[in-house]
Each structure stands twice: as C-alpha cells, then as structure tokens.
C-alpha cells in the first residue's frame, strides 16, 4: 500500500460505512414499500450530499425518509393508517441505526475532506482558511465508539419512546402520571407535554451543572471582572448620574476658563428670539381665527 493510499484510508472507511448504512436503509424502505423500486430515488440526495459535501442535501434526505415512513409506497393520496405504537421492533431500530450512522459518517467524512471548522456566524466568525482535519490524527477507536455509541442511542431512544407512549399526565392524581392503557386517550398531548418536561428537566439540570462548573473554574482576572460587572449592574443608575454631573462640571469649567462668545452662538440666540416672536404672532392670529369661528360677531 502506498503512502497516499494509506492516507486516504480513513476517508474510504467512512465512505464505506455510509454506503453500507444507505444499503440497509434502502432494504428497510423496500421491505416497507413491498418492493417498490421507486423508493430508491430517496437515496439520491444522500449520494449527492456525499459527492458535493453539501450540508443541506442530507437534510433533504432526512425529510424523504420521514415522508417514506408515512407513505411507504410514495402514494400521498392514500391516507396513512394509524397504528398502535410498537416498541423495540428490529426493523425500526435497524432503520434508525442505519440512518443515524449515515449522518454521522457524512459529517465526519466532510470534516476529513473539506473542513472541520466551518465558518460560523456572528461574533465568532472566523476569517481563517477552511482546512480539513488532518488524516494522521484518526484513531481506530473512533469507529468502535461510533458504532457502540449509536447502538446505545437507539436503545435509549426506544426506551424514551416507550415511556412517552405509555405515560400520561393526570394532574388530579399524585404522582400525576398514569401508565399504559390509561394513557391512550390523550396520547399526543401527553407525549408533547412529557417531551417538553423531559427536555426542560435535562436542559436545566445540565445547564446548572455546567454553569456551576464554569463559575468554579473561572480564572482570577475573569472572576474579578465578573464581580466588577455585577457591581456595575447593581449601581449603574447612580454611577451614571454621578458621571453625568461630573461631565457637566467639567464642561462648565472648560467653558468658564475659555469663555468666548462665538458668532455661531449669537446666531443661535438671534434665531431663537425671531422664532419665538414668530410663534407668538402666529399663535395670536390662530387664536383670533378660532375665536372668530366660535364667537361670530
């Protein structure tokens, strides 16, 4: 094996993993559609995503997957048939595992071929040239962690889905949860509320954990600035008032030290006097007109 072939090995690994995943996805889709080969068209965006290394095409592929799961034969004129949620189906799990593997492989492939640090938006926008991840850094454990992790995710997701489908919220009881058959009547609302609750709980717990850790690990200079910022926020209005008075005092002092009536100031005063006189005159005329209307002679 030449050096260049060895260098391109990791790309090929991820390429093969992604292609294998797509084959598995295709098999599942074919089995669901009863052998309709047209469903294979859904794989086109997936391949385009690989060839062009576009970020958007895999998302199109995801939408196609969702579509083909609702309408397995692609016929949108037939209403989908509601079915009871079934859990831990091997076909579903294999499908999900394959699809997720495809996405992860694609992103890692893109990091190796195009850029691992894409230009981001906002203040973090980087001007540096996009460079791919160096091939020499790839370790063999990556693949093991990838497959192991994804299997665990699919299993955990199945467990969560089982919980979401089987638990209902009943605020009249304590604890406010019902299990299994009792939950079926309000299934969709329950799922939504449970999902929101689950996500909220996880986010808050993790957010608090990382926030605490962040505070605890602050560097002395940053910690000092944190305290300074807090003190400034608490006293901002008073300090602002003080500074404004100070600035006013400085201005007065400077003016008194170098008082020199300027032509511009004189023009302003004259203009103000003329404008005020005109306003008075116009007001007087307007009032006269209004009084003439209200009290005709």
């Amino acid at each position, binding site marked *: 094996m030449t050096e260049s072939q060895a260098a391109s090995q990791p790309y090929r690994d991820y390429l093969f993993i992604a292609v294998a995943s797509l084959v598995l996805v295709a098999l599942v889709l074919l089995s669901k559609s009863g052998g309709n080969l047209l469903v294979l068209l859904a794989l086109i965006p997936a391949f385009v995503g690989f060839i062009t290394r576009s970020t958007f095409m895999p998302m199109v592929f*995801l939408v196609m997957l969702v579509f083909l799961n609702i309408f397995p034969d692609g016929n949108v004129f037939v209403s989908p048939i509601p079915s009871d949620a079934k859990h831990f189906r091997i076909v579903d799990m294999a499908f999900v595992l394959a699809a997720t593997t495809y996405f992860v492989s694609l992103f*890692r492939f893109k990091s190796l071929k195009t850029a691992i640090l894409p230009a981001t938006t906002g203040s973090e926008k980087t001007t540096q040239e996009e460079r791919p991840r160096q091939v020499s850094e790839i370790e063999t454990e990556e693949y093991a962690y990838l497959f192991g992790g994804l299997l665990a995710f699919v299993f955990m997701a199945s467990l969560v889905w089982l919980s979401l*489908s089987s638990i209902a919220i009943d605020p009249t009881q304590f604890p406010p949860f019902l299990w299994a058959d009792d939950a079926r009547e309000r299934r969709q609302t329950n799922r939504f509320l449970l999902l929101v609750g689950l996500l909220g709980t996880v986010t808050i717990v993790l957010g608090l954990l990382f926030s605490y850790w962040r505070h605890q690990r602050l560097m002395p200079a940053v910690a000092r600035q944190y305290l*300074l910022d807090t003190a*400034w*926020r608490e006293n901002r209005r008073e300090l602002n008032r003080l500074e404004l008075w100070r600035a006013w005092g400085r201005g007065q002092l400077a003016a008194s030290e170098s008082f020199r009536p300027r032509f511009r100031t004189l023009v302003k005063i004259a203009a103000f006097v003329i404008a005020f006189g005109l306003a008075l005159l116009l007001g007087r005329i307007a009032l006269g007109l209004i009084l003439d209307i209200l009290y005709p002679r």
Partner: protein
Amino acid sequence: VLTGRGWWFLFFAATTLLAGVVWLGAFTSAIPLLGLTLCGYLAWEWFFFQYRARAAGDRLRLDRELLQVGRAVPSAWVGSPVTVRLTITNTGRASLPFIRIVDRLPSDIALSPEVNQLDTSLAAGGRVVLEYTLTPTSPGQLRFEGATIHTADLAGLFYRRQFLAVPREYLVMPPLADHDARRRTTKRFNALPPPGIHRLRRPGSGDELLDLREYRPGDPPKMIAWKASARRDVLMTKEIESDVPVRMVLFVDATNSARIGPPGFAPIRRFVDVASAMTQAAVGNRDLVGMQILRESGSETLAPARTKIHVLRILKMLTVSASELPQPQALDAELTARFAFPVASELYPDRLQSFVNSRPFGLFWLPISDSRWQYVMWGLLGLPTLFFSPWILELLANISATFAPAGKTWMLFFGLSIAPGVLAILLWLLHGVRGFLQPRAGRTSRRKQLAMLFAGQDAAEPILVERYLNDDVEFTRRASRFLHVHHVRLPLAMYDRDGTNRYRNPEKLTQLTHAITRSLSLARDNELYVVLAELLELSQELEPLLKTIRAVRARHHAIIVLMPWPADVPREMLPETEPLKLGTLVKQVLIRRTHEQYQHARQHLVQAGATVMLLDATDSVQLVLDRLDRLRTARVRR
C-alpha cells in the same frame, strides 16, 4: 458554539422529533425513534464537547521559547532567523480529539504562510509542540500575545475558540556587524595611525610634523629643526601633530515626530539602523562612542566607551526606542473603539462574553431626562393643568361642539384633553428607542464591553466603567494605551483643521541644543557629533541649533547632521500635468514644501559649519558609512 452544520442538523432533528412525537408517531414508531436518536446523538456530542471544554480546554498551558542554533535566547537580531517553539500542555483530565493551534504573530517579521498552525489531538496530560521559524525585519520588539486554540468535535458540529494569553516580549536588536561595520583595511594615507588613534591638527606628541616655530626656552633640544635653524640663522623648533582617539557622540531623535511614517519606514527605524552600524564601525576602529536619546520625557545618556558591553547597551537603547509607537495627538473615541474592539475580541474573548461583560437592556435606552427634549415633554405633561381654568375648558368644549359630529362631542373633548400626555409619552418612547437602533446600539455595545475590559484590567471600581462610557477623553486615552501595549498602530491625522502639523515639536530643538552643549562642555580633543534628527518641520526655527553648531566648530570639533527624507515623498518634484486635479495639486504643494524645508535647513546648517546628509529610505547603511568616513577623514587630509 454550534457551527452552521450543527444548526442545520439541530433544526431538522428537532423538527423530526417534534413531528414524530406529536403527530407522526400515531402512524409509525420509526420517525419519533429517528428524531429521538438524532437529538440524543446531538445532545451527547454537546455534553461531551462542554465537558472537554471545561475539563481540558480551560486547563491548557502554553510555554514559549525563542531558539537560535538550538539554544533559548532572550532577544533576536534583525535578519537572523529565529525559531519559535510553543509547547501546549493539557493539564486537565479529558482529552481533546481535535484542536488547532494558531500562534498570533507579531508585526515586522518575514514568515512563510500557515506554518504557525498545527492541527492535532491532545490527550489528557499530554503535550504538543509547534515550531516555526521567522525572521525579524526591523529593530524593535517582537510581542507574542499568545495562541488561539480552536476546538471542535469530530463531526464539526460544535466549535469553540479560546485564546491562551501569555504575552511575551523580545527585543529585536539591529543587525550585528557584518559588511556594514567591518574595520577599515584600505590604506588611505602614507602615515596610517594605529587603530583608535586619529591625527588632530593641533600641537601634540604624535608622529607627523605639524609646523615649525621659533625656539622658546624650555623646548626639548631633540625637537630643534637643525636644518631650518641653519637656513634662517635662528633656532627653530618642530611642532608635531597630536594623536588622539576620536570620540563620536550620537544624538538620536526618538520623539513622537520621528516615529511617524509608514510601518517599517518611520525615521526612527532608519536612525536605529544607521546609528547601530556607525557604533559598530566606530568600535571596530577602536573609537569611543557615546549616545544621547532624545524623548519627550527627557534625554537618556550613555557616556563614550568602546567595550562590547557598551555596544550592546547602545543597541538595546536603540532597540527600545525603535519599538515605541507614535502617540496619537488627536483621536476620536469612536475611531479608537473601532480599532480596539477587534483586538479585544481576538485577545480577550473570555472577557467579552455576556457572562462577565453584560449589556443590560437599560444600557441602550436613551433617557429623555439627559437631553433638552425633556423640557418639551414636561411642558406637554404640564398642559393639562390649564384645565383648571374655566376659560380653557369652555374653549375646548366649544371646539368639540363645533368640530365633532353630534353625539360624539365627548370623544373629541376627551381626545383633546389627553393629547398632550399621549404626545409626551410618544416623545419619551421615540427618544429612548433610538438607542436600540443601529449604528448607535453597536457603538454602545462596543464601548461598554471595552469599558468593562479596561476597568477589569486596571482592577478599578465600577464607576470607572461609567466614566469610560460617558467621558470620551478618558476612554480615548485608555483605549489608545491598550492599543499601544498591543502594538496596534492607529491612523494618525497629521494636520489639524488649520493646517498645523500636530506632531511638530519645537521643544525638541531646545533639548537637542542642551544635549550638544552638555557634550561640548565635557569634550576633549577630537569630537565627532552625529545628529540623527527629524528637522524638516522645524526648518524655520533652527537658530538655537545653529548657534550650538557654531560653538562646536569654534572648538574644532566636527558635527554631522543626518536628516531623514520622508518615505512617502518622492525625491523629485512631480511633473505638472493637465488638467490639474485637486489631489495632485495638494500632493505637489506638500512635496514642494518638503523640498523647500530641506533646502532651507540644509543651507543654514552648512553655513553654520555642519555637514548635512540626507537619509533616504533606499540608502544602504554601507553607503551612509562610506560617506561618513569620507567626511571624517577629509578634515585631516593635507
């Protein structure tokens, strides 16, 4: 931070999850399962990324070394390649699967692109070394601020940038003696004195005959010129030339006006090059060299000597002078903030985060009480007090009755009654909301973040933050100091509205005159004064300097004035073109003025007895040395 790729992925995964759980889960389990798996994967990546950022990213340590020939050195030399070695150590407990280390480069160096970067992974407790070579191009200081560390997950969904600030400054000395400062080997006169000894046309104890004079009692008999005595029939005595060392004193102008110029071509850089080469050439000839550096804060003096340590001391003083940036004389707070903010964002990203540098909603609100519009508002709010007057009430009622349709009179009456209040509220609202609009909001935000950063750096009280927010002068002063520390050049406005040069410094002449007079008072036999100063702007006010030059010449010493020619002004006048454009005209006027200033200064300095040389940006140091050498030896040539 989520990357663009990450945002797309999050959006579609979350949509799939939501649609699957709320709606599509009724038809198939695969979709919610897919959504949950994708979101779970993303959450896991995020969790691990955060964990690694805290456990490893925040615990990186950076060490820097400057190496030359494999040894760590405290300074570099112009034109000599130097290796920068960066060692990043991960003292944390987690590993980083991918990091990119980008060393922030100092200015005035030559470097092939992209060698100051390294992509690698970093295990817990491990270290990586980044080495690259750079070549300093001009004397001064190399300031290394630190290195930027980019961290990402393997899929490129999350990204973090941090800056390991470990500022280090290294002096860049002028080039050491090579062909520019070799000791002379060419023989110019038949009687070449030994190195370090120069002939002085005064009676002394050298070897060369200076003159003959009549014998005076006490003259040594061996000095009697017998042949001449026989010819004249009077005893004649030989007078011998004096042999003395030449003492050269350099007067280097390091004031603000000498630091202005295009990067790398400021007069001070040229002075340092020439002074360094002259010092080494003189010491190579065993001459004594002293130096006086002129600054706004006062002059710094080194007495003449010729040891190696003395030369290094001179070079160090010159280097420190060359590293100073010009102090801007007139600056706009907004302009300074626009320059300072990108530097702060790059070097102190952790101190600009909203977590430690907040920008509350009220910061952007413009209180009407701070403006004159408040009187209008109070006036409007006070108008309803007129309703206590029955006459006003009757007037309003009549207006309502006249202009409103029947049955809706009260509506018009009510509207007229509350109209001033509504107008006042509108005024207050419009005035306040303007602070949230761009570009004012951007300006406020930048200013607040910088103010907090500066106050934090100075370990100051919170009131300083407000002062920097409200006081333009204080803010500008502090921001320009910040930029000065980080070697960032600000655009300089040379002339004010009246056309006066802001950087003109007449005190410099007084300082220079005092320095020369002081040296003159300590002078011995054979002194050479070399003045390296920017005098073009002061060409009309040279009288004190001319007096001093005359005094120097009266004591039989030599003085050479080296004046820099501005790098951005051509040596020839621009040809007049038709049609004449305004820009060309201004340029021509400025060029003509510079030429006239030079001619005027040159004429008066030469008349006073000084030798004037123009330091062009393209002159090589060797050329200047040759010309100087001719000038130094010409006066002893018979």
